[in-house]
């Protein structure tokens, strides 16, 4: 495994810290997000690299099936109860450091993404940055629908990275979903 340079303060200017709506990407909707995860870099990489683990914290991903080592078939919940199928291929893999992927032509949507793992130089764990980008289903309308359903990439990247951090640091994903996790009364005046 090659030694990757530690993150430095120069990275503060990187788009990862901007959490902006739109960043450079080939497709219409894209987002980048960073999180500090208090676990060893290699452990985080290994967990993510086994893509069958991803539905454990990606709420919209219903299933991931491994086709070959670098190819997997995904079933994702889409807008208005629809289901999106895509086949994803790992396009770059640097063990312990970086994974990039991209959807293949037979997929319902065009999608690409990458995740980067870096040691924090001050012993606070691993700095994880994730980029996701896709052409929304059914064009512009799809993005409106996706936004309403909070599946728009910025929200998705933010929440999925939070859940990944929770799962890696605590062994579980925090939830207050009614009724089982958090009982609530019916709405009444």
């Amino acid at each position, binding site marked *: 495994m090659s030694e990757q340079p530690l993150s430095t303060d120069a990275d503060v200017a990187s788009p990862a810290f901007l959490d902006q709506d739109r960043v450079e990407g080939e497709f219409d909707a894209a987002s980048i997000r960073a999180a500090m995860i*208090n676990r060893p870099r290699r452990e985080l990489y290994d967990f993510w690299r086994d893509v069958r683990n991803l539905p454990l914290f990606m*709420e919209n991903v219903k299933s991931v099936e491994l086709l070959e080592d670098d190819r997997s078939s995904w079933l994702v919940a889409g807008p208005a109860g629809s289901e999106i199928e895509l086949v994803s291929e790992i396009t770059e893999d640097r063990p312990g450091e970086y994974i990039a992927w991209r959807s293949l032509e037979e997929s319902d949507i065009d999608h690409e993404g990458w995740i980067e793992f870096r040691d924090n130089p001050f012993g606070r764990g691993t700095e994880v940055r994730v980029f996701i980008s896709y052409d929304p289903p059914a064009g512009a309308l799809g993005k409106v629908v996706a936004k309403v359903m909070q599946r728009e990439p910025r929200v998705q990247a933010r*929440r999925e990275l939070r859940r990944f951090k929770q799962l890696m640091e*605590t*062994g579980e994903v*925090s*939830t207050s979903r009614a009724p089982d*996790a958090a009982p609530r009364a019916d*709405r*009444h005046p």
Partner: protein
Amino acid sequence: MRALAWHGKHNIQVDTVPDPQIINPRDAIIRITATAICGSDLHLYDSVIPGMSNGDVLGHEFMGVVEEVGPRSTLKRGQKVVVPFTISCGSCFFCGKQQYSACDNSNPADKSDASEIAYGYPMAGIYGYSHLTGGYAGGQAEYARVPYSDVGPIVIPDGIEDEKVLFLSDIFPTGWMAAENAGIEPGDTVAIWGCGPVGLFAIKSALLMGAGRVIAIDHHPRRLELAKKNGAEVLNYHEVKVREALTEMTAGIGPDACIDAVGMEAHGFAPDNIIDAVKQETKLGTDRQHVLRETIMACRKGGRVSVPGVYGGIGDKLPIGAFMQKGLTLKTGQTHVQKYLPQLLQMILEGKVDTTDLISHRLPLEQGPEAYRNFHSSQNEWTKVVLKPH
């Protein structure tokens, strides 16, 4: 089960709701034997904390018996436990620094956006205290689901009455941290605004930490009487001008430390407070921060201001010049309850602190709505309410 639910401003009802379930490996279900209404619950009652939703189950001060445990809980069925009001994972950067109320993981991902927007970073989960802090169901109910039960709840030895330890859930550690944040040195004069439960525990804690003198400020005679019994000198702000009195009592120096145990709904008719009250009522956005301003003005040069009182929004008209020119230190925050529990439980077991003198009413859960009404409107007589769900 039966539970107290929020249905809008000044509208609390007892409802039948589903029983909570074990969801995650570290969860536990607690059968609640005692739960209290907190002064900060009145901010929800008054609807000045954002992010409440019709039907939310209330309550963040509770204790009970372990009913069921997940495979990774360290609790055992039948144990009596007190549950900290802040939910903490125990494994993130913040929990590692014992800043438990800043836990990075306990607020569910889909609930964290709002507090990230409001405060810059997502806040930790708190039971029964709006969707900004996780949307968790509270403990003013027959049962509660307790996430990360291997980190939060403290096991209580057999034979200890509930009432003696119940306030480990919030107000005792909150008063204790308020006094700790005041950086008390032996012989200090500490002024404490608000003789509600947190103010009273701050008085007890400040004296235990070696304060020479505690001056407590309120306007309810019964609350002032409680403060006096706990060893404080008292000022009724309806009778005296607080700042002048503090300056006079300290021979011109001012208190070494000032504690705001009131927060965002300060009473009183100072001009700034009237403006703030109108803005708050008309949703123009600002918290009522008369007490915070007064602590900054009253504090001695180089002194410390500690704020356990709850604020939720935006403030203005802060005397920032006095703050800077006098070189004050300001410390605040939701309580890092887990950090203090073993030490404070030990003090209760050794009889070093009276934790029950503030309780004015003990009622069944079914009388919860009435308890909220009275705790809100008759604060002189209703100093602390304990509800018994079982």
